[in-house]
């Protein structure tokens, strides 16, 4: 696989990491305590993300995908198991694991597009000139040159998500975490954003962990798919999807069907519905 973004700013020399494993999620159980109950979101989930992976967490709503992502991001602590990035246990949130959320309000409304992308860079101490250059670069990469000085509330949903992606990528994190970033978009915009994301990945070759509940999106975006069972989330399978993009093919449909049966095996099955409209 092509080049992978270097991250370490302190020691320029690449450390010896023996395998390609970047993120190691090791038998992670996540629980929420509310006032009157304890909810287990995921149970003993384990997977490894390699450098350059477009790793997808796929599962029905409520199976704990977001919780897993938040645990990797450092917002919640596993009650059992460990999460390691580069062999180091994850201790809390940090800019080496930038998150793109589903919600449009993740951008800071008091900052322009440019300032939003710049801010995390400056917050981590990147020198002003380099930070500005990088911010401009990534804004151009997501095609928002003309809107650099606009405030988020004047942008469409898709544009806001592009800014969020630019912002996350500009900090050049070890891994990009995306929680259903396109789920709130209309179908046309979603498709475009998926294509752009893949294009961007092809250009930059970063590592990402991508959460979705859409089988189709998982196959398009991912090279590797972790299928989670319904609540509480457990690993059901880990599949390859590197061969498929947007083009509809025999293999695509077969994989889609296979995952579908996997997810809905326990339920009285309705005939597999194809979510993809026929395309030439």
């Amino acid at each position, binding site marked *: 696989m092509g080049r992978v973004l270097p991250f370490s700013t302190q020691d320029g020399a690449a450390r010896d990491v023996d395998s390609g494993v970047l993120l190691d999620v090791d038998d992670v159980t996540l629980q929420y305590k509310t006032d009157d109950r304890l909810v287990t979101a995921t149970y003993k989930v384990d997977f490894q993300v390699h450098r350059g992976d477009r790793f997808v967490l796929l599962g029905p709503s409520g199976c704990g995908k977001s919780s897993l992502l938040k645990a990797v991001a450092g917002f919640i602590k596993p009650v059992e198991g460990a999460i390691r990035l580069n062999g180091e246990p994850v201790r809390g949130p940090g800019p080496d694991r930038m998150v793109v959320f589903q919600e449009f309000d993740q951008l800071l*409304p008091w900052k322009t597009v440019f300032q939003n992308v710049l801010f995390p860079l400056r917050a981590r101490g990147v020198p002003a000139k380099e930070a500005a250059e990088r911010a401009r670069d990534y804004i151009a990469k997501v095609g928002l040159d003309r809107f650099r000085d606009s*405030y988020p509330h004047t942008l469409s949903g898709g544009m806001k998500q592009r800014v969020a992606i630019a912002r996350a990528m500009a900090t050049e994190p070890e891994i990009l975490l995306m929680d259903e970033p396109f789920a709130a978009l209309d179908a046309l915009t979603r498709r475009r954003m998926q294509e752009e994301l893949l294009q961007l990945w092809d250009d930059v070759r970063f590592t990402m962990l991508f959460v979705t509940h859409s089988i189709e999106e998982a196959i398009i975006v991912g090279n590797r798919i972790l299928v989670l069972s319904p609540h509480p989330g457990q690993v059901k399978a880990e599949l390859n999807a590197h061969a498929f993009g947007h083009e509809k093919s025999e293999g695509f449909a077969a994989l889609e069907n296979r995952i579908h049966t996997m997810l809905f095996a326990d339920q009285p099955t309705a005939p597999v519905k194809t979510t993809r409209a026929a395309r030439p």
Partner: protein
Amino acid sequence: MTSHQNRLVPQIRPEFEREVLEAGVIGDISRPLSPWERLAGNTLARRVLILVLLGAAWQGYAVWSQNPLMFPTLSETLATLWTSLVDGNLLERCLTSLRVLLVGYAIGIVAAAVLTMLAVTTRFGNDLLSTLTSMFNPLPAIALLPLALLWFGLGEGSITFVLVHAVLWPMALNTHSGFMGVSETQRMAGQNYGLKGLRYVMLILVPAALPSILTGLKIGWAFAWRTLIAAELVFGVSSGSGGIGWFIYENRNQLEIPSVFAGLLMVIIIGLLVESVIFRTLEINTVRKWGMQR
């Protein structure tokens, strides 16, 4: 059942496709507004119009009622206001009041900031703030004045004390509820940048809660202004030259009713200026520009 006969069936219509016009042909896709459109959209212009209407109503009623002792005309009041400002000591009185006011307001804001910082960072601070605000917020500041006079003597100290009390609680309450209302996503985004402690509060929570903070500032200002005038009406003679409240009280005693009205008008004008110049400018350049408030 006859529903079979009149079941709703949409008619099948012919399909069509069209060439759309070039954007250039359509004309106004985006153009600057005409002066008239601008004026109608200008809040200041609309408010001035309301003020003019109110002034006209005042003048009309006063002329009709023919009772200058109880209700002088607007023109007479304005004339008195002018002479008091130029020849008299009204300006000086205003400055005295404003100076005391600003000191109390500033201390109140700082105290509120400290309390709310404590409240968002520690559980104890949170409990402290909610207990204190529920105890003291309903307590009218002016009711504390006798006590304050006992503690700080006749003078600016006592008035500053009641002013701080008037500003602190509504300010703290608003700021705190603003912090509480910051969306989970924005909080996580801030933490994701690696921001912690004071930097996190100042760079994420404060701007995100700015609409509520501005409301707190406005309410605090109004409470302080009211409290000050009331306190001066009662004890104003104590604070050196006396403020604008004392000006009103003195003139009422001498039955200089136009001067009383002039003093009241001055209070209103200062209030209007602060609201429509200072706070509005603040709002336009922050929360409105950022789309956080309409």
